[in-house]
């Protein structure tokens, strides 16, 4: 294990503090109930589910990239397949984790297995998540086995053969897994989209386009996280990734951004044209209401600007600009998730005074609010931040102890 800079240890401590804070906030939430969140009876899902969808997206996107290295023979992606798969595994694990603070009775989580309802999209998603996580880990293991064996690690579980024949066999298995992983990654995010898309009571979600939008946004957010991680690791170590790889990643990102915008724009046009209140009310929240900043951010700095930055190869190959573009896209996709979950709730289908009981009186007007309101509390924000921290911690530790970075090529250099 190499010696690390103080910056590295500082980073680790920072992450641990972040996670510790989240744990503390969760304990407070467990004691008092979900009353400590901003959610109420009208807006009954908030930041946790928003982040869940976000993390699942990044994860699916990451694996789509790494498995396409084998499936479509994109040679440039092979050196980063391990990093991408590690990120995919970390993100999907944390996505599953982010459901737990959302549950009112987390101690009953095993009921999802014991009493799973085959009609519930949540159960479909749960199933895909488990399969997907296992696939990621198995995939990673085969990618790293030879490397681990050379280092004499016990994680090879006794499979220490590093003859060219054994390594070739590993590679074949990785290839086979990639063929399974690619459709699984696509299904992972599609099923997550169906959690929303099937809900006939929420016109904002009830759309067959949600799944394609989720896939496009998953691809760009997953790619962005891979790019960012590769750039950071490159900055912190002496090993260099080939320019060609970086270039292709940037190019692919630039291609998918407009597809994502195209799909989202489609939703807007169809809804606006109908001029039916159930369709346009959520849009007013986004075009003129409290979600306007998210909308503007998603479209301009979150999509159009990075698209322009990525167009020119010279800009694209500049690590600073590429990193900035990736960061913008990531946060842009996060904005999209915010626009998706909460606005679906604000105007319930039956909108009459005194409205749906919020559990709180709205002073001045009627006894109960007609519309929903939601603003995350610091408890939710702390837990949310901790979830990001866990992803970063898993990736950092993986970088630290596993050979996720080194490839055959790099080592020979």
């Amino acid at each position, binding site marked *: 294990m190499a010696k690390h800079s103080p910056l590295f240890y500082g980073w680790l401590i920072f992450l641990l503090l972040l996670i510790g804070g989240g744990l503390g906030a969760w304990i407070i939430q467990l004691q008092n*109930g*979900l009353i400590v969140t901003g959610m*109420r009876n009208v807006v*009954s899902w908030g930041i946790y589910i928003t982040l869940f969808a976000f993390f699942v997206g990044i994860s699916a996107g990451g694996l789509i990239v790494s498995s396409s290295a084998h499936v479509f023979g994109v040679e440039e992606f092979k050196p980063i397949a391990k990093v991408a798969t590690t990120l995919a595994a970390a993100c999907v694990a944390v996505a599953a984790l982010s459901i737990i603070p959302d549950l*009112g009775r987390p101690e009953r*989580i095993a*009921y999802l297995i014991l009493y799973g309802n085959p009609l519930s999209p949540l159960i479909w998603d749960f199933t895909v998540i488990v399969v997907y996580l296992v696939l990621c880990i198995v995939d990673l293991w085969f990618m790293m086995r030879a490397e681990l064996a050379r280092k004499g690690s016990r994680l090879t579980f006794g499979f220490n053969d590093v003859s060219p024949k054994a390594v070739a066999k590993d590679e074949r298995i990785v290839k086979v897994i990639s063929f399974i992983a690619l459709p699984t990654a696509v299904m992972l995010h599609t099923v997550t989209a169906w959690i929303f898309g099937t809900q006939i009571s929420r016109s904002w979600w009830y759309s067959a386009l949600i799944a394609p939008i989720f896939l496009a946004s998953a691809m760009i957010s997953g790619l962005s996280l891979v790019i960012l991680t590769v750039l950071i690791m490159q900055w912190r170590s002496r090993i260099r990734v080939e320019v060609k790889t970086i270039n292709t990643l940037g190019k692919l990102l630039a291609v998918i951004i407009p597809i994502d915008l195209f799909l989202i724009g489609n939703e807007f046009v169809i809804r606006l044209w109908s001029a039916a209140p159930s369709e346009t009310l959520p849009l007013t929240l986004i075009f003129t209401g409290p979600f306007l900043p998210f909308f503007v951010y998603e479209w301009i700095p979150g999509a159009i600007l990075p698209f322009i930055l990525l167009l020119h190869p010279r800009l694209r190959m500049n690590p600073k600009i590429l990193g900035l573009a990736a960061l913008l896209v990531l946060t842009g996709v996060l904005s999209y998730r915010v626009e998706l979950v909460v606005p679906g709730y604000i105007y319930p289908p039956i909108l009459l005074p*005194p409205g749906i*009981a919020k559990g709180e009186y709205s002073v001045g007007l009627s006894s109960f609010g007609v519309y929903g309101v939601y603003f995350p509390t610091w408890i939710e924000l702390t837990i949310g931040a901790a979830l990001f921290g866990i992803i970063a911690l898993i990736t950092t530790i993986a970088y630290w102890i596993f050979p996720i970075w080194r490839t055959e090529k790099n080592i020979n250099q």
Partner: protein
Amino acid sequence: MVRYGLVIDLDRCIGCQTCAIACKLENNVSLGNWWNRVLTVGGSMIDTSSGSYPNTSIFYLPITCQHCDNAPCVKACPVSGTYRREEDGTVQLRIERCVGCRYCMAACPYGVRVFNWAEPKHLPEHGTGYQGVVKDEGWIIYSPERPKGVVEKCTLCIHRITDGQEPFCVAMCPARARFFGDLDDPNSKVSKLVKERSGVRLLEELGTQPKTYYLPPKRGKQSFTNLYEAFVKHVESTLTSIISTSSDISLKAIASATLKRVLQRG
């Protein structure tokens, strides 16, 4: 098959919120949560009309779980905590199975499900209403104690209807605007009312097949007179029964004085 449902006569409903309070009392619903609510179809605030005088319009829409036959909440629930009971068609919730994911709240178009965001509080503290527990195949589907972290909603007063009684909100409605019965029996009062008065269901276009029918308001002097009469009759019979059955002398005195006043006005 028995398919229990509610019929609510919007011509008769006076928006008094008695059913909402009755439900809260009978089912020990915690502070801040309501299983049953009376919405105003009129202005932008409760008890206000739309339009300007003399062209105004107002009626009330009591809303509680519609016990949908094709219930989105049932399909959404990952653990089948919420399910449709085959024997009577009601939609129930296994309190001890709910994991509190609130997917059902996202799925229900009628916004009638409520969540115990904190440990429930009651007034008076020891709670009110039915204190027993109702079980279905070993799972508790009604209990006066529902802990924090689970969803709850109208059970169609499962403890009463399995005992041959009407739901409490139906029994308590002073305007006699609520009816309970078997929608599969063409001769039941509810089936007849739905047929005669062309009962409608809320958000029918979503295909949820609710079992709560609303009799559309006709509006007019005639129905108002009927309503007033029905109201007076209800008060009259309640007071008379107190006078003849109660052993409390002061209560009897108050009841007969009130009765006298009601009769004078009528």
